[in-house]
């Protein structure tokens, strides 16, 4: 047997204990590879949405890389520690530290190349599938599979470097000086080291502080809190797992009537040891899960923004013609033509809007004619308004403004034309996107409207009125491509800053909506994949820990059976041991996320006026189900391993 063979056999025969983090690294490499396939896709080189996808995936790749590095490093050092007995034998037989390093390096390289190869193979096999999902989400006509060396090189390069780094670093953690300690296995003597009561209280205190701050976040403080709460919560979590929880358990243990009760004695004591043993791991799992929840939750709440989109954009196409627009009829004709070509039913209402100055506020207002407005309202299926002469009705620009406008009675005069108006109410629906009309817009009686004949102060008569074409198309999301030439001209004008040739404003909310929707869906898709890798890794930490303790646990259960524990009691003990390992980090992560979402909601309220509660609940419920499934899977494996003896 050569030296290399030894390393090879070590990997092969330890495969069962390598299984969990082999799985996690294969999935991580696979996702990484799929993202690279997207990034290097020839189709994305010019597309606008493509560039967003590429950026999102690039970020995701960096995150994956860093996380996998961290995860593999942790698993590897724990695994090497668990194998210390084996290393003890080898060192005892005269293996030098250098040879030992070399052996581990070989093993790592074998493991690395197998998992990279497997990850890429799976990734490539599934990339057609992921391209299909991507195509659906981004609503592209086609996203063909392609062959290029670039994604392969990126993945291989990234993970080769990663495995090399890990094998060098993790080797340095083996201490070969004290062979006896190695041989002795890894029941560390300082396992139940003293708890510092100050740190225990500090842990709980910091968590409380973070939660209170998060719950009390206000608009004004939110940007400061973003930098205060996460570090406080992170330190608090760390101390909670390394100290507070043990202090609490010790308090519990002091109460013998609780503790000395049937299987509790064994299960609580055992859980305490395991929680202490892997405190750092629980900390990592908690933070990782929190980040995963938050990422996916935030992205999901973006998609709920698109859900509100229709309410704030009830018009399907908006064309506004300003002064000197010679192309007005030509453009409208073009739009109608395109709609007919696409076979879309539509209705168009033309409104003339006059600009005046209101005496009450001194601000400029837009004035609409009641009969024209009613025509649009009935097209959209809303009620009419009939202001009497001298009366006005406010046009709300958002749901929130509606309430505010309804409460005020304004007594004003349109200064230029000298028309007095009393405005007591607001129209109960939002009809116009807020960017297309003045925030102060008023519907007036037809006669009053006729009487507005003086131009806005300092402007010509032409400049003080414009034509508003509102299209209603029942199938409003199907307007992709309608008026693209107008949009392009506008984009060009925005880019060059030269508006001299543009005397209109055009908006296609249906197209914008699809764009919003697909980019958020894409981000969500990227986020869910990363979160899945996180969760899988978190689960494999736990599985791995269970596996390394299996021998000890098995012996212990054998003893308990001898001492007369029934099968039911044993199962209860196993459950009591597994449940905290799975669900304690989980619960803490859930708590963290809930409070984080309370503060996020404040941020959201400020700029998008939407509620993320529903989406959050869905995300958290979804993750909980995945975790439950994972728990039962691992419990099943664990119990069958235990019974194997």
């Amino acid at each position: 047997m050569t030296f290399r063979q030894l390393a090879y056999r070590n990997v092969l025969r330890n495969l069962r204990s390598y299984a969990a983090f082999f799985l996690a690294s294969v999935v991580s490499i696979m996702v990484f590879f799929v993202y690279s396939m997207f990034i290097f896709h020839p189709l994305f080189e010019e597309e606008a949405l493509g560039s967003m996808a590429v950026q999102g995936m690039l970020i995701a790749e960096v995150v994956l890389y860093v996380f996998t590095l961290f995860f593999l490093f942790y698993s590897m050092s724990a695994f090497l520690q668990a194998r210390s007995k084996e290393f003890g034998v080898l060192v005892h037989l005269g293996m030098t530290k250098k040879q030992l390093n070399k052996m581990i390096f070989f093993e790592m390289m074998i493991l690395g190349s197998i998992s990279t190869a497997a990850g890429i193979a799976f990734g490539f096999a599934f990339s057609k599938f992921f391209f299909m999902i991507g195509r659906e989400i981004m609503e592209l006509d086609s996203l063909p599979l392609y062959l290029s060396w670039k994604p392969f090189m990126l993945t291989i390069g990234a993970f080769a470097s990663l495995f090399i780094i890990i094998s060098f670093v993790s080797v340095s953690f083996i201490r070969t000086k004290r062979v006896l300690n190695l041989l002795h296995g890894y029941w560390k003597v300082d396992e139940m080291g003293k708890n510092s009561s100050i740190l225990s209280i500090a842990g709980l205190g910091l968590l409380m502080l973070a939660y209170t701050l998060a719950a009390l976040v206000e608009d004004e403080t939110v940007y400061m809190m973003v930098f205060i709460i996460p570090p406080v919560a992170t330190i608090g979590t760390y101390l909670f797992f390394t100290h507070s929880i043990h202090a609490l358990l010790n308090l519990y243990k002091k109460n013998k009537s609780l503790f000395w009760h049937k299987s509790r004695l064994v299960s609580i004591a055992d859980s305490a040891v395991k929680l202490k043993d892997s405190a750092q791991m629980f900390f990592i799992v908690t933070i990782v899960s929190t980040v995963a929840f938050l990422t996916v939750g935030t992205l999901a709440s973006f998609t709920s923004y698109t859900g509100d989109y229709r309410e704030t954009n009830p018009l399907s196409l908006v064309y506004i013609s300003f002064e000197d627009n010679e192309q007005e009829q030509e453009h409208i004709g073009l739009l109608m033509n395109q709609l007919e070509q696409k076979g879309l039913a539509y209705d168009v209402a033309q409104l003339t809007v006059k600009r005046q100055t209101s005496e009450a506020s001194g601000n400029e207002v837009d004035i609409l004619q009641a009969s024209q407005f009613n025509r649009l309202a009935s097209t959209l299926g809303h009620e009419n308004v009939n202001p009497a002469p001298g009366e006005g009705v406010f046009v709300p620009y958002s749901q929130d403004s509606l309430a505010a406008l309804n409460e005020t009675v304004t007594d004003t005069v349109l200064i230029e034309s000298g028309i007095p108006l009393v405005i007591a109410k607001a129209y109960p629906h939002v009809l116009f996107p807020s960017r297309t009309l003045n925030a102060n817009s008023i519907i007036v009686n037809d006669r009053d409207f006729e009487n507005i004949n003086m131009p806005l102060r300092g402007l010509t008569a032409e400049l003080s009125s414009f034509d508003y074409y509102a299209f209603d198309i029942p199938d409003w999301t199907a307007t992709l491509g309608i008026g693209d030439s107008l949009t392009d001209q506008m984009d060009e004008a925005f880019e060059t800053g030269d508006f001299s040739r543009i005397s209109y404003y055009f908006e296609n909310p249906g197209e914008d909506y699809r764009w919003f929707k697909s980019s958020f869906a894409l981000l969500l898709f990227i986020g869910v994949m990363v979160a899945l890798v996180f969760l899988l890794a978190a689960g494999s930490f736990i599985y791995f820990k269970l596996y390394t303790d299996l021998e000890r646990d098995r012996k212990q259960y054998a003893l308990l059976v001898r001492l007369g524990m029934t099968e039911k009691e044993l199962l209860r003990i196993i459950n009591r041991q597994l449940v905290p390992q799975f669900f304690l980090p989980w619960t803490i992560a859930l708590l963290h996320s809930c409070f984080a979402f309370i503060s996020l909601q404040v941020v959201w309220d400020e700029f998008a006026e939407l509620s993320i509660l529903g989406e959050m609940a869905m995300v958290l419920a979804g993750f909980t189900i995945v975790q439950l499934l994972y728990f039962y899977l691992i419990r099943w494996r664990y119990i069958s391993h235990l019974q194997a003896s």
Partner: protein
Amino acid sequence: MPLVKIDDVTKVYEGKVTHRAINQLGFEVEKGEFLAIMGPSGSGKTTLLNMISTIDELTSGRIMIDGIDPHELGKDELALFRRRKLGFVFQDFNLLQMLTVEENLVLPLTLDYIPLDKMADRVMGIADRLSLKPILHKRPYEISGGEAQRTAIGRALIHKPDLILADEPTGNLDSKASREVLELLSAINREEGATIIMVTHDPIAASYCNRVLFIKDGEFFNEIYSDDRRQTFYQRILNVLSLLGGNVNDISAARLP
């Protein structure tokens, strides 16, 4: 009436090579007796003990403990039977590492709904008896082998079982600790009338017993009863062992107490 009645017990391990570990063995153990079972490696001692412990099945024959045939009990009843009637002492102590000495002692009682004050009383009584008081709050890795085995004996005694089964209790101990443990076992036997079955290699350990039963290749070989002087009993045990012709290495170098 004998406490343990072994009747024509046979144990066959099926497998690639069928192996007859115990062959038509029969003997009885009286209440209050301290019995040693000796025999060379592979003679079936541990198999026999496991069958008495109810954790291994018989191929044929019958074992009665206190008038009950445990092999006829259901799973849960059997667990309860072990919990209440049997106490175990092992070669490698088998203390639970995450429990303190005190918690290890109280373990069999917690399984059985005993009220807390009664548990505390019992623990104190046992700790006193076995001089474990100073180490009650230590964890198993912090105490010596002798202390660990005393703890294990305490755990085997605390629920006042009918029968204590000891598998090489001195196998992992130095001679001083061995002597302490054996004196403790025989004192418990003498003063509290506990019935003990001990499997051992060690003729010194066996010389503390009332009776030594020798088995060879799973069959009864001989038995001898103690007399007044332990030294002569020890000599007689050695004589039988030499007749037994087991591997010489099995018999630890003569070390007279």
